[in-house]
């Protein structure tokens, strides 16, 4: 009794819903999908039946030597009939790609489609995920059209054959470019520089000691100062200031500052030098050197 009470409303509900569903919807029956490698016999390759309610669970491998064959019978309600639209729709949701292949349909609803990888758009060939293959059957009038996923197609390619590419230019942002600068000039290790600098600087004291060892002296300085004090002081001073001028030119002066100063010091050195060297000649003539 309770069971009857419970089932009655359900029956009513179903009977209310049925007419809507039964205003005849498009669908199909006796569907098979076959993948046959080129040259394989009638029974070679893969073949499986599918129905309109549930898609095949496993993806179908589809290589570049295979041909895919889908056969089905289109039905409006329960009668076989030729629809206006019977497509195999390949769809990749992630990239928004879709392409349809129309079935060759006979008057009795028997539909057949053959497909090879050559017919696929090249954008599909590089997809890593399986493609959703849907059957779309529809026609004019009241009947509800059918569109549902029936199997998944996994595109496999020979890795040795390069993918055809379609480079089309589209306006968009371009990759960033950052200029690669040349390496700035580098110095040798500071230790080596210091060692060689020390070696070069050491030549001056070595020279001094050698001269002293060979008997160099300043023994005639008092005599020279006594006989010609001014020329000697000025001559030496001008020589030292020449070096000073060069130092200034090296650090901060420019050529136009150096030249007049050097000319002035040069004249002074010439005049005082001739006097000072005259004194030196006097010493030589006196047999002192």
């Amino acid at each position, binding site marked *: 009794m309770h069971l009857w009470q419970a089932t009655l409303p359900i029956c009513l509900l179903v009977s209310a819903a049925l007419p809507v569903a039964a205003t005849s919807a498009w669908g199909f029956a006796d569907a098979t999908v076959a993948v046959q490698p080129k040259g394989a016999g009638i029974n070679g390759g893969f073949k499986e039946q599918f129905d309109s309610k549930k898609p095949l669970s496993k993806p179908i491998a589809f290589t570049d030597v295979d041909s895919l064959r889908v056969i089905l019978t289109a039905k409006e309600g329960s009668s076989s009939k*030729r629809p*206006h*639209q019977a*497509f195999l*729709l390949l*769809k990749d949701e992630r990239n*928004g790609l*879709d*392409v*349809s292949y*129309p079935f*060759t349909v006979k008057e009795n609803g028997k539909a057949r489609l053959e497909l090879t990888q050559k017919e696929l758009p090249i954008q599909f060939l590089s997809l890593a995920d399986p493609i959703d293959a849907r059957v*779309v059957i*529809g026609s*004019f*009038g009241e009947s*509800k*059209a059918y569109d549902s996923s029936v199997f998944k197609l996994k595109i496999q390619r020979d890795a040795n054959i390069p993918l055809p590419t*379609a480079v*089309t*230019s*589209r*306006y*968009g*942002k*371009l*990759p*960033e*470019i950052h*200029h690669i*600068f*040349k390496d700035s000039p580098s*110095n*040798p290790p*500071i230790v080596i*520089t210091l060692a*060689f*600098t020390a070696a*070069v*600087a050491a*030549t*001056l004291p070595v020279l*001094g000691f050698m*001269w002293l060892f060979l008997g*160099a*002296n*300043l*023994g*005639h*300085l008092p005599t020279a100062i006594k006989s010609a004090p001014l020329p*000697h002081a000025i001559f*030496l001073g001008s*020589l*030292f200031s020449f*070096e000073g001028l*060069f130092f200034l030119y090296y650090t901060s002066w420019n050529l136009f500052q150096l030249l007049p100063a050097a000319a002035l010091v040069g004249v002074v050195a010439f005049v005082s030098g001739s006097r*000072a060297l005259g004194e*030196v000649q006097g010493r030589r003539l006196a047999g*002192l*050197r």
Partner: protein
Amino acid sequence: MRWCLALLLCGFLAAVNALSSSGSRLLVVLDESTDQSAYSTLWSDLKGRGYDVSFESPKSDKLSLFKHGARAYDHLLIIPPKSKGLGPNLTPKNILDFLNKDGNILLALSGKAATSSAISSLLLEVDIQLSNDRSSVVVDHFNYDTVSSAEKHDVLLLQRPGPLRPDVKAFFNGEGVVALPRVAPQTLGSESNLVSPILRAPATAYAYNPKEEMPAPEDIEATGSQLNIVSAMQARNSARFTVLGSAEALEDQWFSASVQAPGGKKTTTVNREFAKQLTAWAFKETGVLKVEKIEHYLATDGEVAPENLNPKIYRIKNETVFNIEVSEYNYDKWVPFEVPGNDELQLEFTMLSPFHRLALKPVGRTETSTIYSTKFTTPDQHGIFSFRINYKRPFFTNIEEKHEVTVRHFAHDEYPRSWDISAGWVWIAGLWSVIGGFLAFVLVWLYSAPATEKLKKTQ
């Protein structure tokens, strides 16, 4: 003073006529037999947005797109005539000349009758193709209006389109469905980057010639999203050519029709809003960019003196700042331009090829513009460089800016001094020890007494 007044007057006029950024003269080419009042809401909407709408029949002798060699109109809207062709005054060449002179065109097609071959060849010029028989209609057994086309399924009900790509701004999006009766589909050439789809057919749609009973599989040229219902071509001069597959969609009866998709609820169409978005874009009320100001200068702390702005010459390895202000026109005013999500405004520093290509980042905004800026070091290569902005995107007018500057190498006194270079210390030490040795030698030569004792010993 007079100049100021003129500017004020211009501003005042612009405020009064809130309208397209490129003029208000709109010519509607409409067959006499076509009822003009069928589109009355569209005309009143366009007039309300400030257009001077004038109507001409394609057969009229007075119809001319040019006057004294200049454009007589700023925009052109063509409703397909029932008769063949557009007449002698609207040849494809005339229409392309109009486009080349910065005129904008909105061409409506209709799947009711075969499209004329003149229009087909015009569309081929802009890389938009019609179907081979030029009389295809798009049908979709999943997205049709059950009220008006329960049998024929040729009134498509579609959502308004979102962005074309993640990095492209959506100009036509929004809620609600658009009814598109008897669409003549277009396919786009894949080679051109000037054409872009505005509204594509759903994946389950296909096109067929209604005169034929059953389409043979080999007659089906394009399906699904390869079929375009609305497409656009923006030429290199930023003039716009828009193709609407269904002229009927602009009619009053579809502006607020009550429609119902199979298995859906009854809704009212949003054709009126979509027509507004479409005509606004086609006639340059939206998606128009303008560069307000460009500044570049040496990077410094604090304010840059005006005389140091935009120098003609830079040195290699200079820290340089580049600023650009960009505005976007939005229906009736200039607003700050925002770069769409994944996109970037890029600066190139170029001599023959770009040495730097850098993203410009927004750093501030004024009332009408956004300031984009970047900072970079000029390359270690002297020559004539240019700052280049080449911003071309679907649905935006092009920005092409080129500002030339000289990049010189280091001057003689800009290199580091020799004592800063540790490798030079050996040579400096050598130099000064020679100088020291010379001075010591002069002293010894002048004042050394002969080493007499030692000489005697050796003798």
